[in-house]
């Protein structure tokens, strides 16, 4: 972390300076076909295969033993593991709460040897989104913002580069300009609200001009304030978006009832469906959150609900993307704050457990029915091929075609990389 600027070779130093200038000036939209994309050939399997990413984020900390790393010994959950279809891969079993995913196990790849240092919700969320531990002096960019920074917007796409579906705090653009922040959709059913002006188009434009006039003294007085400037950027961003035909991508009510049913009722199913629509319309990075994993009490009851929600929506998403021909270019990844204790506690629940947990990948050229790494027989520690949150974030960055080794300077002149120097798990890609 404490990399010394002077130690770097001249080329890297020049890159630093370019990045600083770019960040400072808010110039972030590189032309398509930029350096990063051209470099794709030499970066190993899977590099740049993910034109789009759908990140399923498990809030509260998903139990690994009851889902993707089932055990049969003393730490076994209430439900027996079920045999999963594996194709030519090495996948054996999934947790008993995931029958639909077991049916299409040949389409997913699991990393069972995840291990992290933090069992705290906020830190877990942060590190799985940015690859960095939270600090009081800087906000690190999330993956969607890294994508926009290096690759620019996808050509001819008006929609924002990244979207989050769910609530809560998100590192968003981090130290990049606020325009790279994901658009937060708090309810997938409601979609993007308030998109119809309440007056005529002409009048609307006049009102906006009037607003700028009335506000000019204030903006001048606080012209050094980045929060004020950010709001002004959001207004221009919003004006652009309002003119776009693609706004309908945010409206899942345009989907036939049969499709909506497949994804399952409730926020997460709708969120996954919304993610598919957004990807179809060119959005690069969509995060969909599923809460309710903080199962300290009666985990069997809790898993019956959440397991079904996840199983239904995740499997529907894979199949739907495949039928639309989008699975090849879309990476679905599933991450969690941490795992949960192998031992069931006195309240029939499981507590926070960062030492071992699982993440899942599908699409974008990942292997099917594949398991990378494993835990010991009770799911307490990784037994081989231990992977960190940094490796996880780097893997996604790699799939997106980002130069994960390239150092980018923050406006405060500190050096950062995608995934904090983690190693991409290229073994996941065919």
């Amino acid at each position: 972390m404490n990399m010394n600027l002077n130690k770097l070779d001249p080329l890297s130093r020049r890159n630093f300076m370019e990045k600083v200038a770019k960040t400072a000036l808010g110039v972030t939209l590189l032309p398509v076909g930029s350096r990063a994309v051209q470099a794709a050939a030499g970066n190993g399997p899977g590099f740049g295969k993910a034109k789009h990413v759908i990140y399923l984020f498990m809030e509260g900390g998903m139990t690994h033993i009851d889902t993707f790393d089932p055990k049969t010994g003393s730490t076994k959950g209430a439900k027996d593991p079920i045999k999963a279809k594996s194709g030519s891969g090495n996948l054996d079993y999934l947790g008993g709460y995931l029958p639909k995913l077991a049916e299409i196990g040949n389409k997913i790849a699991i990393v069972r040897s995840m291990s992290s240092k933090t069992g705290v919700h906020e830190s877990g969320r942060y590190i799985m989104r940015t690859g960095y531990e939270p600090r009081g002096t800087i906000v690190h960019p999330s993956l969607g913002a890294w994508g926009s920074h290096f690759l620019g917007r996808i050509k001819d796409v008006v929609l924002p580069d990244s979207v989050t579906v769910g609530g809560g705090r998100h590192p968003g653009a981090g130290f990049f300009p606020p325009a790279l922040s994901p658009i937060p959709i708090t309810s997938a059913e409601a979609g993007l609200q308030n998109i119809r002006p309440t007056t005529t188009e002409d009048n609307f434009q006049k009102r906006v001009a009037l607003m700028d006039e009335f506000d000019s003294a204030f903006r001048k007085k606080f012209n050094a304030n980045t929060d004020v400037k950010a709001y002004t950027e959001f207004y221009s961003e919003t004006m652009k978006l309002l003119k776009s035909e693609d706004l309908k991508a945010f409206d899942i009510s345009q989907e036939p009832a049969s499709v909506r049913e497949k994804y399952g009722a409730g926020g997460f199913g709708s969120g996954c469906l919304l993610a598919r629509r957004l990807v179809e319309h060119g959005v690069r990075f969509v995060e969909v959150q599923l809460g309710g994993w903080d199962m300290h009490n009666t985990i069997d009851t809790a898993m019956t609900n959440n397991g079904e929600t996840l199983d239904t929506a995740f499997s529907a998403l894979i199949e739907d993307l495949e039928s639309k021909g989008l699975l090849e270019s879309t990476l679905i990844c599933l991450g969690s704050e941490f795992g949960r204790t192998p031992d069931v506690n006195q309240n029939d629940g499981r507590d926070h457990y960062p030492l071992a947990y699982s993440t899942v990948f599908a699409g974008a050229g990942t292997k099917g029915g594949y398991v990378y790494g494993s835990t010991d027989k009770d799911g307490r520690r990784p037994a081989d091929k231990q992977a960190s949150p940094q490796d996880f974030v780097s893997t996604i960055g790699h799939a997106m075609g980002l130069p994960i080794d390239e150092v980018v300077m923050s406006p405060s002149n500190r050096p950062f990389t995608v995934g904090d120097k983690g190693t991409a798990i290229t073994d996941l890609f065919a």
Partner: protein
Amino acid sequence: MKTLLTGLCLAALGLSSAFAEVRTWTDVQGRQVSATFVNIEGEDIVLQTADGQTHRFALTRLSAEDQAFAKAQKPAPATADAVPDAALSGFTYAKSAAGQTALGLDKLVAAGIIKHANPARAKEGLPPIKGFNAVMNDEQFVRRVYLDVIGRIPSYDETLAFFQNKAPDKRAKLIDQLLDSEGYNSHMFNYFAEMLRVKHRLDQANVRADDYVNWLKEQISKNRPWNEMVSDMLTAEGKMWHNGAAGYLLRDAGMQLDNLANTLTVFLGTDVACAQCHDHPFADWTQKQFYELASFFGATSTTYRRGGGGMMGGNADLMDQVYAMAEKGGADLRRIRNGLNNFVGANRYNIADTDKNMTVLPHDYKYKDGKPGDEVAPKFVMWSPQDKSNPAYKQNKKSEEKLRQSFAAWLTHPENPRFAMTIANRLWKRAFGVGVAEPVTNIDDPEKASNPELLKALAQVMKSVKFDMKEFQRVIFNTHAYQSEACTEEIPMGAPYYFQGPQLRRMTAEQAWDSYMTLVLGQPEEYKAPLSDLYGKSIDLDLTNPKLDAMTVLMKYSAFQKIEKKVAALTGGGLDMAGGDMMMSGGDDKPSAADTAAASVGANGKQVLSYGGNRLLRASELPQPERGGHFLAEFGQSPRTLIDGGSRVGNVPQVLAMMNGGAQQMLTERSSLIFRAIDAAKDPAAKVDTVFLAIMNRLPTLQEKDIAKREITAHGDEGYASMIWALINTREFIFVQ
């Protein structure tokens, strides 16, 4: 301001000239430097060279002779004394105890600017801070103080009343008036609810925390001292509907260690979450110490334990009997089982103390000072060796049933090294936008605060007002520092701040919503959510009573459901919010017209209004937190999962809500309160003044008057709607100066 500047400069000179003797200093290696002595700070000496730079290094690096010389120098006088009263002129202090205390704090702020800020700025090549920012004018004052004290902008009438008041002490009077108003309670509730992660529907449990919410509101409106409130929360027994304070521990039922980590973070500004799983990587915290603190809660249970296969202590087969009876009565068990279980299950959440401490080291404990499974005795943590003689630590820990009382007595003791300081630092941050020590959740070493003297003084003030939240804030709002203009300079994240004025901040989600409510309702506090106590009144079952039978359970459940229907009718969210299987048996799924009518009459008899599916009440009267998609959620209201979890970051959906959302539509409709005020004004110029006074709490500038005139000439009444729209959408509206 001129006198202030002179005063500060003199003070700065005073500090250095008293010790201006240049001498040659020699270090242990024989190297020499010419410099003047500035101060000894802890183990370090600070010297100043001729170029004005100060240098700080370990005293032990100097030769023995120089060390002796340095020690013989008088330490710099307490910096507060170094600032003459003249430095603080140009500002009239309230003639009250609060005004006098405010003056004392201002001296420390001014001293901090001289002592801490300007030397640091000089090193970075930044110009020195020349004193407080200009005192804000009445227009800035009235808007900021309403937003900061009662959480909303002032109404048109309130703004006008303040401007027309010519009394010299009208600012102090307004602060007093606002602190005693209903709006203060609402705003303070929002703050504590965000800090304590207060929710109506708890994450894990099928139990609602309505009575915890009500309890918290009641304490705030009674202005219960903070130490008493916290003590109540830590020691409460029973169910929430018997004692609302029980909600604090039940909020995290089954997550005792997380609850403890939050307790230390929120009340003691000490973040030890890492120590739950391992020794703290940075601070001197060990996992053992964390468990020693946890041991104070080791004899406390938050749920009735399930006995061998049956219910808790009472009738073991009760639920089976209930199911059987319900089926016999023609109910479809598949439809009602969940609801019944939730109803009965809610009554499992009960705090009780036993005589057996269950605290043991975790199975993966890996340090040498204990083995997994070892019992852990309760022990308070210390921040410094002096704490050994601190009276807060004199607690009896003998009785297992009284462990929590000991813990609460220690934590809330006025002399606890962090308790008073933490809440004082938090409330300071609430007024200024940044704490003296940051982050407020982890003060760590008070000496590393941007102004350690100020931090300690704030803790002292908190103690001397005996944890009276209103009195403490009265002091803060009466300081010169607070009543100065907001800083226009950008302060980088994590950089220390020295309080020459508050920082510019975006309104919180609640402030933004409540300000809209003010524009729509005038006095939004007059509208109260109805029936907030019904849940607690209808849910109670005594599960420990062996005589509790199936018939009683079913009858009570039926009554509970009727009330739930009534509540659902008024929460605006409809039946979907009350769980999937509301009904005992099929039939109508809609609340009756009578229920809906009852539900819309507020607690004080005033009809609750709604617009576009949203109830027009202050945020504190709405569900905690509001649903996704609501204005409050879009504007960053905390989902209440993490401490202080709100966000003030902008985004596209917010902008859309401001441009096209329901709140904006309400204001631009002809029947709106603001349009009625416009209609009442006599001529176009007065009408324009009205729009500006209502929305921006100031009169328009000459240039703005011209723009407004142009609009109205061209578009007539539509011009007023456009002006309202435009002003609501300005950055000036959403940021608090």
